[in-house]
């Protein structure tokens, strides 16, 4: 394809790996991808393995342990978004929060029950409690406004920042009450992967 498709926004490890797979000259090895995407080798290996099982990546020449690295090619380019696949290669639907984010930007005004219904897929339902939690967080972030009635929300149009759903992250801090300082902060957890 002539057009260059560069993803926008911050990329997760899998997205970095996928972008590297599409960008590098074919065929490539796991080491090439790890260098290009700056991801851990283990993560690269796991994701590429699932992509092979999903028939998205093909093995062009099998390597020999400790001598020749296996070479891979991209067999089925799915475009800019990193394919969501399980370890066995079966396709994975978008996360519940991604579906909620998408549905609320279309509906604009909605009740929690309505959003749960819209964001649910037959194989992956979204619970109303989960809708409630996510809406509360988005309201804190200024994406949603409470719509008067008890579980009605409206999406603030100017806050449609893009296709990816805002993530609620966990972070742990070590706080010393003697000095009133946060002396250590853990890495964030709970983002999309």
């Amino acid at each position: 394809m002539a057009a260059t498709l560069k993803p926008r926004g911050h990329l997760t490890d899998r997205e970095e790996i996928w972008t590297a797979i599409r960008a590098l000259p074919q065929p490539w090895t796991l080491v090439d991808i790890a260098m290009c995407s700056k991801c851990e080798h283990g993560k690269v290996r796991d994701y590429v393995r699932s992509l092979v099982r999903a028939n998205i990546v093909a093995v062009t020449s099998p390597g020999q342990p400790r001598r020749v690295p296996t070479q891979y090619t991209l067999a089925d380019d799915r475009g800019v978004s990193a394919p969501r696949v399980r370890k066995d290669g079966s396709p994975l639907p978008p996360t519940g929060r991604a579906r909620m984010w998408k549905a609320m930007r279309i509906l604009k005004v909605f009740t929690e029950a309505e959003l749960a219904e819209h964001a649910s897929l037959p194989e992956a339902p979204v619970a109303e409690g989960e809708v409630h939690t996510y809406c509360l967080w988005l309201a804190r972030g200024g994406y949603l406004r409470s719509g008067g009635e008890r579980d009605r929300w409206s999406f603030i149009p100017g806050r449609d920042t893009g296709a990816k759903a805002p993530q609620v992250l966990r972070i742990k801090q070590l706080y010393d009450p003697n000095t009133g300082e946060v002396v250590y902060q853990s890495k964030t957890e709970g983002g999309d992967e």
Partner: protein
Amino acid sequence: MMQNDSPVNTPLAGRIANLSNVSMCLGSFAKAINRESHLPGLLVMHGPSGYGKTTAATSASMMFDAYYVQCRSSWTRKAFYLALLKVMNIDPARTIYAMEEQIVAQLALSRLPVIIDEADHLTDRGIIECVRDIYEGSGAAILLIGEEKLPGALARWERIHNRVLEWLPAQPATLADARALADLYCRSVRVADDLLELIHTASKGVARRICVNLERVQETGRTMGHPQMGLAEWGDTPLYTGDAPSRRR
């Protein structure tokens, strides 16, 4: 209060899909996505506002993982392409031509369909041809949604008109649809059949008005403490009909 909060607690999944406009839209979209290569791939869903077109679009975009954009009256060709690239999560190229290439490439590679809501704005501004450009380049199934005059407006662009696989006029809500909406919106008060029929008639089949009326009925039931609202409980309180208020005498 809490324990009898949801006397109509049937499982949620699939209730929206049972609405007649939604199931029609899902069925036709599935056909367009899986069509044989010689068949055209544009769908046009049209109908008056409040008939539930956007509800259908939401379901379709979820079910088929479609890209969804809602057009605005101020949009130029560039604005349209930028909006599409935003939902595709692609860093836009500099020129309009390059943006179009990006969109076409992404659609062709991902094989995902597109939903363009409020497409009337594209015909009004004469930029509907860019939908054809995208369609021709990628072969993606595209669902255009607009008001009643959209088919007429599209007739002016024969090259688009020829590529429509199916025209989907949104239908007024049936009584069964009204029941499905009542089950979805009235969680704490059950709406009896006689009152539901009255609501259906007064709302003239417009889904949005049915929802407004159901909401009022539920609110009244809640304040008066009725777990079920029928004609007897509702009395002769006027329903929302969408008509402008008549002169007071």
